[in-house]
Structures are given as structure tokens and as C-alpha cells.
């Protein structure tokens, strides 16, 4: 067995506590990011997700200056930014991009200042921007578990109102759903998910883990629950494979210098997204044949439906 696995898992992989921590945190983050990501794509708030991640840079650099854990910095700034977006008017479709853009600009100005103060620590900047999955302390695990539970709890509770709201806010409001409160709670979940993803693969790459697997999953499935499960699986797969490849990469050139986990994760997610488009063409044709939907040039299915 080991003989076959040896080329894949470099020596010491399963014994490394760094790898253990990375696997645990990476898996939790992938679950949370995939779940929230599906709603993010459905609600058309990918830009807000990206902005919350970028704003985490401010939090991360601030946390580094003050000397607390990066995750706290990501968390506090993402949540504060989400609250600001909500107040400025992210709940209105037209105000959405505006609210996001204004808050993003203000926060990044602060990030510039914080990073400017960190003149001697370019390593910190790299960690904040591009992640530190392979350099996580195992002491962060309890907090990651707690935050993941909060986000998954919100997603499960709001599942149906969120779905209906993403179909039509008007329809949801007519059904008595408190659309604004639901939207605000969802934004909180997104902020936490993005903070977690920032911890995993860095602030500016965090959206890739939130939106990427979800976007791929949405092309592959027809049901919301299946889409979430697929997104989670893609995220976990990319994270695990990324960790394995990063560990292996220590024996790759340049010698003595491993490759970034984040690079692998993001690249794998991107490839997954590209691949998800392959069965789509085939499936679309199949569905149109089955449903006789719009765009079908075949006369027979339409007649069959009307019978």
C-alpha cells in the first residue's frame, strides 16, 4: 500500500502536525465556504464577498501591528465592513455595488497605512494576502470550529427564506419574510466565511474558495442542496490536493523552498470551474430535449407537453 502511495505523499506527510492542522482547518473552511458560496452566487453578491476578503487585509495587518491572531483581525474587519455595507444600503440591488465599493475603498486605505507601518515584515504581508494554511498554529482550531458552526447554523436556519429571497425579494416579502433581516444575517455569515477563507488561503484569494467551488457546483446540479454538497466537495478536494502538492513541492525546484498551498488550491478550484462547463453543454441539450424548453428547435417535445 505504502509503495503505491509513496509517490503521492512525501515522507512524513501523515506524521506532520502542521499537515494535521492544515487539513482540519482547510476542511472546515471548505465546508463553510462552499455552503455560503452557493447563496453568494445565487444572490449575486460575489463582489461583496471579494470586498469583504480584501477588507480582511486591513484587519490582518492591523492584527499584526497590535500583535493578536490574524483570524481575529480578519473577523472583526469583515464583520464591521459587512455592517457598514448593510447600513449604506446593500439590501437594495442598485445600492449594492455602491455600498460595497465605498466600504472597500475606505478600508483598503487603512490597509495601506497598516502595511506601511509594517516596513520590516514583508513576510506578514505575504501571509495576510496569500494565506498561511501551512503555517497555522493548532491553537486556532477551536475558534475555527466555533465560527464554522455559527456560519453553518445561520445557513441551515435561513435556508428556505434565503432561497426564496434569491428568486425574488418581492415574492419573499409578500410571504412575510423579513427580507432585510435575513439579508443582514446572511451577510454576517458571508463575512465570517470570508474571514475563515482568508485564514486558509489569504485575503485576496479568499473569494476564490467561496465563489469558485459554488460557481462550479451551480453548473453541475439542478437542486440547491446538491449544489451545496457539490461545492463543499470541490472545496475539500481542492484544499486536500493543495496541501498534498504543497508538501510534495519541497522536493521540487527551487530546492529547499516549497510552493504555496494557496497557489495549488486556487488553481485546482479554477480548473474545477472550467471542467464543470464541459458536461453543461451536453446537459443543457438533454434538458431541452426533455422539457421542450425555450430555444428547442425540435417540434415534437412541445407538442408532447401540450398533450
Amino acid at each position, binding site marked *: 500500500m505504502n509503495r503505491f502511495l509513496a509517490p503521492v505523499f512525501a515522507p512524513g506527510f501523515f506524521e506532520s502536525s502542521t499537515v494535521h492542522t492544515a487539513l482540519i482547518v482547510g476542511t472546515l473552511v471548505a465546508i463553510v465556504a462552499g455552503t455560503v458560496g452557493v447563496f453568494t452566487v445565487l444572490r449575486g453578491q460575489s463582489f461583496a464577498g471579494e470586498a469583504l476578503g480584501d477588507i480582511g487585509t486591513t484587519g490582518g495587518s492591523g492584527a499584526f501591528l497590535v500583535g493578536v491572531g490574524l483570524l481575529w483581525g480578519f473577523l472583526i474587519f469583515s464583520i464591521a465592513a459587512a455592517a457598514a455595507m448593510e447600513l449604506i444600503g446593500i439590501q437594495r440591488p442598485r445600492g449594492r455595488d455602491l455600498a460595497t465599493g465605498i466600504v472597500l475603498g475606505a478600508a483598503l486605505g487603512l490597509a495601506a497605512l497598516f502595511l506601511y507601518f509594517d516596513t520590516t515584515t514583508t513576510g506578514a504581508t505575504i501571509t495576510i494576502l496569500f494565506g498561511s494554511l501551512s503555517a497555522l498554529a493548532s491553537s486556532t482550531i477551536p475558534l475555527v470550529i466555533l465560527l464554522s458552526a455559527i456560519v453553518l447554523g445561520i445557513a441551515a436556519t*435561513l435556508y*428556505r427564506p434565503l432561497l426564496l429571497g*434569491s428568486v*425574488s425579494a418581492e*415574492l419573499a416579502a409578500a410571504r412575510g419574510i423579513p427580507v432585510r433581516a435575513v439579508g443582514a444575517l446572511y451577510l454576517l455569515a458571508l463575512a465570517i466565511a470570508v474571514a475563515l477563507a482568508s485564514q486558509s488561503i489569504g485575503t485576496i484569494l479568499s473569494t476564490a474558495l467561496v465563489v469558485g467551488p459554488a460557481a462550479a457546483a*451551480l453548473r453541475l*446540479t439542478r437542486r440547491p442542496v446538491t449544489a451545496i454538497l457539490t461545492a463543499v466537495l470541490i472545496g475539500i478536494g481542492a484544499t486536500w490536493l493543495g496541501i498534498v502538492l504543497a508538501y510534495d513541492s519541497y522536493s521540487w525546484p527551487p530546492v529547499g523552498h516549497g510552493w504555496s498551498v494557496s497557489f495549488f488550491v486556487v488553481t485546482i478550484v479554477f480548473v474545477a470551474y472550467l471542467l464543470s462547463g464541459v458536461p453543461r453543454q451536453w446537459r443543457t441539450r438533454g*434538458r431541452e430535449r426533455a422539457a421542450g424548453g425555450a430555444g428547442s428547435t425540435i417540434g415534437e417535445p412541445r407538442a408532447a407537453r401540450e398533450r
Partner: protein
Amino acid sequence: MNETPSAAHEPAGAQTASAARESAPPQTASAAREEVLSVEGVSVRLSGREILKDVSFGIGAGEFTGLIGSNGAGKTTLFRVILGLQASTAGRVLVAGRPRSRRNPLIGYVPQKFLLDPDVPLRARDLVGLGLDGHRFGIARPSRARRELIDEMLAAVDAEAFADARVGTLSGGEQQRVLIAHALISRPKLLLLDEPLANLDLPSGQEVVALLARIASEQGIAILISAHEMNPLLPVMQRIVYLVGGRAASGTTEEVIRTDVLSELYGRQVEVLHIHGRVLVVAGDDPETAHQHAGPLTAAVQIIQ
């Protein structure tokens, strides 16, 4: 909305909303019928503009009512008031005799605009299921009863064939039917449809109208459907609420679609013409001022409806 009848027209209102309400007690026939919806003297003022002015009408069980008016006449605002999404400045709305609550399961709603990306992984049957319990927290537990009810609703709107297709890939008429099933599944007594024919071609529109008429008669569900043109609804419409510039005239189509009633409502002389089973409302108007009133202008004669 530019239609602002001068005060002089107000007291003369023989059949308009305010007058109809004052003379309501003698109408024993309408008082006796069980009203699913009673709109009583509703006025709405938004940022200084009067959107609705003393609108009153009632809808009985299983009645098919058309809410007719041009763009800006106040149709959507009236719907929002009925749905509890918009507070009225005056008047009240009763649903089945009680003041309506925010989430009223007795009212089913089919919104006008509905743009869903084909990528959204929501099948027609998922959307119908959300009509049953979309306002609840948590994830729906699948059950045989739930599935059968969804199938029944899909069958009621002839949507079985595309029940498993993504909603975003369906045509406008198909989406409209799925939305009707979504609204019907909570067993409402009143179905509100906001301009369901606006984005449909004529055959699809006729299909939807016929479907709604069938639902009204078979299931005894009252239907209030807004439209800017009344002709597609004439074959099935039992009652009409005719909105002009926020004021309404209501009654049976014979009572409302009359030269005197509509002239009063428009605040100027209009003619109701019956041509080949269609109704035209025209005004011989001065082209200079005609554009201030509702509707497009054709030559010297303005076809309002």
C-alpha cells in the same frame, strides 16, 4: 399619474369610488356576498404625490376581477397595500372580514418581474415547494405528502412536463404557470397577479388567462389580476376595478365600462366603443393636451383602452 382631475369633477362622481362607497349600503346584493377582500377608502400619498385616492372595492369568493389601468395609474401600489408591503395613508383593507396581517396565508401573490438566471439550481418543483414553506426556517424535510401536493399543484397548472427543469430555463409563460402553482400551494382564498400578461405573447397570455379562470371556478379562489389592457380579460372577467390616476371605479364590467362612468373617472369626455367583441375607450381630444392624459395618442382620436 398625470391624470389629475380637477376638484370640480369630484362631487359629481356618480359611480366613482367615493360615491360608490357612500351608496354601498343600499347595494344589498354586494353586501350579502361573502367578501374575500374589501378595500375601503384606501388612499396612499408617497413623497407628496397622491398615488391612490379613496379607492374602494370588494372581491367575492371565486370571483375573477381585473384591475385595469395604464402605467402609473396605481395598480402596483394598490397591490402592495393589499399585500401589506405599503402602508396606506387612509382607509383599510380587510381580508376575509379581518384586517390583513403582514403575512397573510389567504393571499397568494404572483409578482410581475421575475428574472432568474438559467444557472440557478432551482427546479420548477423546488419553487412550488417554497410556496408551501419558503417562509419557514430550516431545511424542508422531504415527505411523500409534500411531494404529492407539489405534483398536484404542478398538474393544476399543466406544468408536469417541465417540473424538473431549472426555472431559469423556462419560457415566460411556463415561469408564470410555475409561479401560479407556487402561489396556489398555500391554499389561498385570493390570488393577486401583477401584470401577468405583460411579457407574454398573445397565445401564452390566453393560456394563462384560461388557466386562471379554470382555477377560479374549480377551486373557488378569487382572482385579482392587474393589466393595462382589458380586452384579453374580457371573456373571463366578472368584475372590474378601473384605475385612472389613482381613482377607481368598480363593479361588473357592464357597470363600469360605460361612457358616463369612464368619462367621470377620466375627468373628460371619453367614448366606449364595442367593436368585434373588443372594447375601445377613446377620447376625441385636443392633440396639444392629450399627452397629459393616460395612453398613447393616435391621430386626433386617442385610444385609451
